[in-house]
């Protein structure tokens, strides 16, 4: 039995008894623990994935009129951020890409372990950045056809890796959607834990992780009594179904508890930089939609003498998503360490405050995906579905009503986005203060927190400035 890499060292088997356990709630709890619950939800999302593939490949190649692009780039992203905010990693729970896993394991060898040197978040960070670079370069949001191909790629990659390796390496070490969801779920209000740690101490089978005759154990090899984080948890609830003592809980928690707890995460470079990059990528992803980025691209093209947008975007990505976050946070860590007069590795100084980026990062994603894209476009799925059905001679929903779209008045959007970012910023400040107070040996003085506060302030101001700019939608016509 292997303990999760993310959970780090083997902690004593102690967790406080959860105050509220969703798995014990009437009806819903029983439904969630039902053996086929995940399969049913996955089949529903598989149906959605199939529609995405079908309409993406055969439907109108105008993004706002196609189920593939509307479902993926509006509703999937909106669903993900609101689910993370209100519950947890519900997309990974219902992920259709892992459905073929059972088949893959049946046909493949599956017993090989994922290479030790790749058992970290570096690959996940690289794939996330690669995916976002492709998103910008190929204008994925504007192409139903490419969107469908992305879905095919997910199915293939998931199947191949599951067939070759044990430990769900696709989910844990590769999938960019999973990486996004893992990072976001660190501030979700639900977490897997156990009701009574003593039961786990005396449990011999450890079915939650090893599986039973009927139910698989945890795909990402997390051991519930030692879980201190949502990182790597796909919320499949197989642990709860496999536990012969009904001892696994899906407990409510303060959304800031995990990131405020210095012992919740191992102090690893990859994990902590993932959260920092998650924050800066949130900003650059929104920046990719406003006018100054196009001007910047034009200037860079002139300066470098190239018209290759892929190269220009790669340089911009390297600057905004790697160079800037890494240099700024290392600088803040170094300064903070000096101001606190600590003698420790820079990695330790970074890990003390890097989790504080999670609330602000999530707030920027929420404002962008949940606010701008979803709230202003949620109802566009209705005319697109009407149009899709008419294409198939199904008239039950009538003619498309193309006036449907936003679910909030347009004037609410800017204040709402600002409010969300400010709330995220305030939550990040709270986390900084908590982590300073609970620092090893002695609390960090306020001065040692200052570099981090300034960095968070800079990020929040930049996010507010970008979100207040008029968004532009470009993608079909090459600049020239």
């Amino acid at each position, binding site marked *: 039995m292997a303990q999760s890499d993310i959970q780090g060292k083997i902690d004593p088997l102690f967790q406080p008894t959860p105050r509220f356990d969703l798995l014990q709630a009437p009806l819903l709890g029983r439904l969630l623990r039902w053996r*086929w619950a995940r399969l049913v939800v996955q089949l529903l999302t598989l149906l959605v994935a199939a529609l995405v593939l079908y309409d993406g490949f*055969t439907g109108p190649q105008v993004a*706002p009129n196609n189920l593939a692009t509307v479902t993926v780039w*509006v509703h999937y992203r909106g669903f993900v951020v609101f689910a993370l905010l209100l519950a947890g990693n519900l997309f990974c729970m219902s992920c259709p890409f892992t*459905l*073929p896993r059972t088949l893959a394991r049946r046909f493949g060898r599956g017993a090989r372990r994922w290479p030790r040197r790749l058992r970290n978040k570096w690959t996940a960070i690289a794939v996330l950045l690669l995916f976002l670079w492709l998103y910008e370069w190929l204008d994925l949001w504007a192409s139903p056809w490419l969107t469908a191909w992305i879905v095919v790629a997910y199915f293939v990659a998931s199947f191949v890796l599951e067939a070759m390796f044990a430990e769900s390496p696709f989910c844990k070490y590769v999938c960019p959607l999973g990486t996004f969801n893992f990072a976001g779920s660190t501030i979700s209000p639900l977490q897997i834990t156990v009701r009574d740690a003593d039961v786990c101490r005396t449990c011999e089978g450890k079915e939650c992780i090893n599986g039973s005759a*009927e139910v698989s154990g945890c795909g990402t090899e997390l051991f519930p009594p030692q879980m201190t984080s949502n990182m790597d948890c796909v919320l499949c609830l197989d642990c709860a179904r496999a536990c012969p003592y009904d001892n696994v809980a899906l407990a409510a928690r303060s959304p800031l508890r995990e990131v405020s707890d210095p012992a919740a995460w191992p102090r690893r470079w990859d994990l902590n930089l993932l959260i920092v990059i998650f924050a800066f990528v949130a900003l650059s992803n929104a920046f990719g939609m406003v*006018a100054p980025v196009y001007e910047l691209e034009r200037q860079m093209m002139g300066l470098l003498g190239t018209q290759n947008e892929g190269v220009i975007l790669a340089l911009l990505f390297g600057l905004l998503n790697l160079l800037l976050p890494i240099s700024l946070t290392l600088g803040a860590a170094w300064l903070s360490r000096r101001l606190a007069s600590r003698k420790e590795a820079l990695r330790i100084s970074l890990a003390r405050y890097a989790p504080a980026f999670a609330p602000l990062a999530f707030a920027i994603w929420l404002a962008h995906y949940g606010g701008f894209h979803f709230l202003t476009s949620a109802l566009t799925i209705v005319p697109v579905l009407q149009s899709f059905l008419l294409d198939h001679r199904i008239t039950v929903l009538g003619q498309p009503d193309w006036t449907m779209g936003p679910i909030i008045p347009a004037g609410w959007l800017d204040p709402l986005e600002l409010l969300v970012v400010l709330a995220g910023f305030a939550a990040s400040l709270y986390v900084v203060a908590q982590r300073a107070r609970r620092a090893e040996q002695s609390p960090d003085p306020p001065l040692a927190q200052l570099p981090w506060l300034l960095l968070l302030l800079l990020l929040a101001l930049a996010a507010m400035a970008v979100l207040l700019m008029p968004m532009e939608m470009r993608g079909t016509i090459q600049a020239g």
Partner: protein
Amino acid sequence: MIKTNAILKSIVLFALLLLAACGSRVSQQESDADIRVDLAPESTVVGPTTLNITVTDGGGAPIDDATLNVKGDMSHAGMTPVLAEGIDGGQQGLYTAPFEWTMAGDWIVTVDVSLPDGRSTSQRFELAVSGDGAMDDMHEQ
């Protein structure tokens, strides 16, 4: 391995349903090659504008009795389209449609033309709309 069998059966059933669905799509609207449509927006800057649409037959003769539907979509999924209402015309094949570019960025304007004799065509035009007054490109598809 009850679960494996259940998944296998579900996926096979699902694939069959999908295959059945795939065969029944109505083909995209066919365009009559003898009808030509040209689009000239008065402005490609965010804000109200007028779209000047010219409809002619294969020989270049103006068509004045066509019914036009004009819809503007942005390149990004989820953006509410703009529908042109109160289209005037046609005089010497020229129709004018009040329109509004609601956002800067790439637009796809679809002009559906129906003639009383049953002929019809649909043309798509791609335009880049700016927010600062600079004129951008237009491409016909």
